[in-house]
């Protein structure tokens, strides 16, 4: 067993790994941004000395990542506090801020926050005053595209700390077909001690599912799905299952959440609501294949499958006519 399959196996059953292609496991974990998670899952296992040292370094690094992520959130809090705007942390930073199981070893890139759409301009202005700047390449067409159709401001980067912040006002592009209820997301959000907020448990899972399937071409999907596994296990209860189903329907994302449940159960053996999830389908097999398309050298394989998903991700973000125009303009540059 190699590559992504070995990685999934190790995450799911760390004590079942035994002697394996360690270099391949590590390369796959690094490629999938799962090295920290793997290092913590394997902490109690007897592994060769060199591998143990690599895992130890990865755990230390994960601690630093957590510190830096929480610090970015704090600096954003300081910049936005005078506005009295609800600022909702999302993705990895939210997991760390709320100490969810999903934060263990979780790498974090940009800071993702969500604010009400009507306050976007104020928020952007406050961030610019506090030392963030527009990323240079988001000019002209792409800038317009972002503002009009995407679910976020063009990315901002901090001028001295060199870290990015993505400010969203909903969880999917405005042109995508499911229309999540942004106000309901904000209304159900939960305050943390420092005044920053996170989504409600059901909404966190729904966001992760939306992000996994509707927002991208599944790159980084194994990490996304691992998040979903950890979240589901932590939140699981009869009441949570009911709320998850209700909220998924409210946000028009029930099929996405159902698919996330099926894939999480398939890969990570997550206990799930079988009635909501439904049966594993033929299309699910394609998703599974795409998620596992990485070999023991860390290379992505199955190019045709990946290209199909890349096209799909753009098709989902915008209607076909707009897609054609977008791709044509991109090609001309």
């Amino acid at each position, binding site marked *: 067993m190699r590559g992504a399959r070995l990685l999934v196996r190790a995450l799911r059953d760390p004590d079942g790994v035994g002697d394996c292609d*360690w*270099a391949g496991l*590590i*390369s796959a974990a*690094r*490629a999938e941004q799962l090295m920290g998670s793997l290092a913590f899952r394997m902490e109690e296992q007897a592994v*060769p000395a*060199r*591998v143990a*040292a*690599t895992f*130890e*370094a*990865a755990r*230390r*690094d994960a*601690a*630093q990542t957590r*510190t830096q992520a929480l610090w970015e959130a704090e600096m954003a809090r300081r910049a936005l506090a005078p506005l009295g705007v609800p600022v909702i942390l999302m993705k990895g930073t939210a997991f760390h801020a709320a100490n969810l199981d999903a934060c263990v070893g979780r790498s974090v890139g940009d800071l993702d926050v969500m604010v009400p759409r009507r306050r976007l301009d104020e928020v952007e202005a406050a961030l610019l005053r506090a030392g963030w700047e527009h990323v240079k390449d988001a000019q002209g067409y792409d800038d317009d595209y972002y503002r009009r159709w995407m679910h976020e401001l063009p990315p901002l980067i901090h001028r001295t700390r060199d870290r990015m912040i993505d400010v969203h006002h909903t969880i999917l592009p405005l042109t995508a077909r499911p229309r999540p209820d942004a106000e309901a997301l904000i209304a159900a959000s939960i305050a943390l001690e420092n005044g920053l907020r996170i989504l409600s448990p059901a909404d966190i899972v729904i966001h992760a599912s939306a992000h996994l399937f509707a927002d991208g071409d599944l790159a980084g999907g194994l990490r996304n799905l691992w998040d979903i596994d950890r979240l589901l296990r932590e939140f699981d209860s009869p009441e949570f299952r009911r709320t998850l189903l209700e909220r998924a329907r409210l946000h028009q994302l029930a099929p996405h959440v159902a698919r996330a449940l099926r894939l999480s159960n398939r890969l990570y053996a997550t206990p799930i609501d079988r009635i909501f999830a439904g049966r594993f389908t033929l299309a699910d097999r394609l998703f599974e294949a795409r998620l596992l398309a990485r070999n023991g*050298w*860390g*290379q992505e394989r199955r190019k045709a499958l990946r290209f199909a998903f890349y096209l799909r991700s753009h098709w989902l973000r915008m209607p076909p006519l707009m897609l054609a125009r977008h791709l044509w303009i991109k090609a001309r540059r």
Partner: protein
Amino acid sequence: MRHRLDIQIGPVAFRIGSAWKAPLDALGRLYAAYPAPADGICDFTVRLEPEKPWRRIFRPSVAIRGDYVLPDAAPMALAHGLLAAEMGMNLQMALGQKSWLLLHASTVEKGGRAMIMTGESGAGKSTLAALLGERGWRLMGDEFALLDMDSGQLLPFPRAISLKNGAIRVMEAKVDAARFGPRLEGTPKGEIRHMRPNDDSLARMGEGAMPALILFPRFGEAEAIRPVGAAESFMRFTQASTNYVNLGRRGFESLNRLIDACPALAIDYPDTESALALVDDFWGALAA
């Protein structure tokens, strides 16, 4: 990947895969005297891949990939494949190494104590280190210094030295031809030739040493020496480190210990002979 070579340099083991045989043959010859990693277990993976599938054969073009990549890196010609492999290993160290505080510096050792030399690219530290390595010093590394944050020791990372332009001629005159790689012309940095450290350096690649002297050498200036203050040293070392910002308090404390324990000097030198003389003087004074 069609071809594979595993190499151990100091405490770090690399797995290098390549779509072409030639770069790994050249790498294997240059690193023939180095141990292979035990158990085939490696710390980092480097991959030499075609930029596009057809570029494996038509106008071969080598993209440097691996566990850690530079997204906008330009691919290299197959003739420079050896250089691509070296750059790939450097990249894994610079982007992925978090076990030790990593400094862009040369390290040499004599009598159980180490001297660490750092400065801008082109300041001459690699050539100085290479020369010292032939003059009774043990070369621990020319590009990366590894500071063990628990013990305070510097650890060896004696990779093959990447000599450029004039420095190639200087070393060819002093060192056995068997220790050199092929001459590579037309690279982004001009002419390059790799030279491996001597047998003593390789035999002792597992042996660390406590630092005793910090040097900031600057080539091409009239001879001058001045002591460097602790705050300036601290700042220059953080600038010379790719991973300091990710190491938190441990990095801060161990850098402080390094600077606290060692005198630091900035030396300007017009040619390597005067540099070597300056170094010998100071080292002698320290030992006394």
